């Protein structure tokens, strides 16, 4: 009986010491984690909302281990963001250092969707007879027109243009990219031709957009006045058919 009791006491004390050790280990791990988290928050305060609360409050070992990897990811993401931001800044700086190339890209786009350069300023840089392929989205009243093949700047600097054949499909993609439009089936295509210093001639034919959306190469008549007004408002130019 005595021997059995002694064995039991011995096992119990072993068990208690094992449990104590586990608790101690968990306590230290939590302590290290808490210190790490505080350090992370001090170093990268912007990411504080990304760190899960479980990292701080839970004493569960699995959650803690998971949290360590999460912290690593947060840190990695933060570092990546900093690198990306630096890269973007460098790119912007180099673009700004070459204002001529920046301007050449901006002047090829006429739009009422957050334009980099106003449509009237862009148009004033073009030679007469330059043409622009355009798309108008009736539900949002957003439109964009891109310089088409043959368009030329007064400075004779080269510019990128959309193709004459199928150019409306290229402009539609650009408008979708800029605005996030989902439904392109209501889009109306048009062409602007610079007639003189303050007049644009508008034409309405397109297979890739109008024929697809309305079964006719010509844009529906009921949209025409609205589109002409939108272009007149944005460019300040007289728009004639």
């Amino acid at each position, binding site marked *: 009986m005595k021997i059995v009791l002694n064995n039991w006491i011995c096992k119990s004390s072993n068990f208690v010491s094992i449990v104590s050790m586990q608790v101690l280990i968990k306590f230290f791990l939590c302590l290290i984690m808490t210190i790490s988290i505080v350090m992370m928050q001090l170093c990268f305060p912007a990411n504080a909302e990304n760190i899960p609360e479980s990292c701080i409050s839970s004493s569960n070992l699995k959650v803690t281990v998971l949290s360590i990897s999460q912290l690593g990811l947060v840190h990695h993401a933060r570092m990546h963001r900093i690198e990306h931001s630096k890269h973007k800044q460098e790119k912007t700086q180099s673009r700004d250092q070459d204002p001529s190339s920046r301007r050449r890209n901006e002047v090829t786009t006429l739009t009422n969707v957050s334009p980099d350069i106003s449509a009237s300023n862009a148009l004033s840089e073009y030679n007469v007879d330059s043409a622009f392929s355009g798309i108008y989205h009736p539900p949002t009243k957003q439109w964009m027109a891109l310089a*088409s*093949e*043959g368009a030329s700047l007064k400075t004779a600097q080269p510019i990128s243009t959309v*193709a*004459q*054949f199928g150019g409306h499909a290229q402009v539609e993609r650009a408008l979708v990219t800029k605005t996030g439009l989902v439904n392109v089936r209501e889009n109306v295509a048009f062409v602007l031709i610079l007639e003189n210093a303050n007049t644009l001639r508008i034409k309405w034919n397109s*297979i890739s957009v109008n024929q697809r959306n309305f079964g006719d*190469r010509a844009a529906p008549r009921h949209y025409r006045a609205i589109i002409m007004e939108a272009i007149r408002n944005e460019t300040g130019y007289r728009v004639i058919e």
Partner: protein
Amino acid sequence: MKDLPLPNLLVEMLNSGRWKAPDDKELIKKIGIEDADDLSFLSLAGMESNTNQLRQLALNGYSDLMGLCSGNVELLPEGYLDVTKAIVIAATYGDEALCLDYSNSIEPKIVVTNNTGSSTRWLLVAENFEKFVEILGL
């Protein structure tokens, strides 16, 4: 153009500056172009960019609408153009075009877009480039 040699006469006309739309718009309308005022006879670079766009359209879901096939067809449906064997040589802003069509031989035919209501198909304008030059009096 890659794999598709331009007719010698076209190369000569490009080099000598003779490759330009005729002043007589009625002649252009006769070959099937509705927007005769807009028709541009393309430079070599223009041919390349418009031909690239033609190929993109075939890949991006415009095949039925614009009568385009992108190779790998045993029998080309009537009125369709195989974009891997075609070069755009003239175009309007409203998506009309004249193309060299090499689908049957090394000597290309000249075809033009033709609106059939809800879609577009391609019609023969001339059996060869010399005949095309003759029709337009270039």
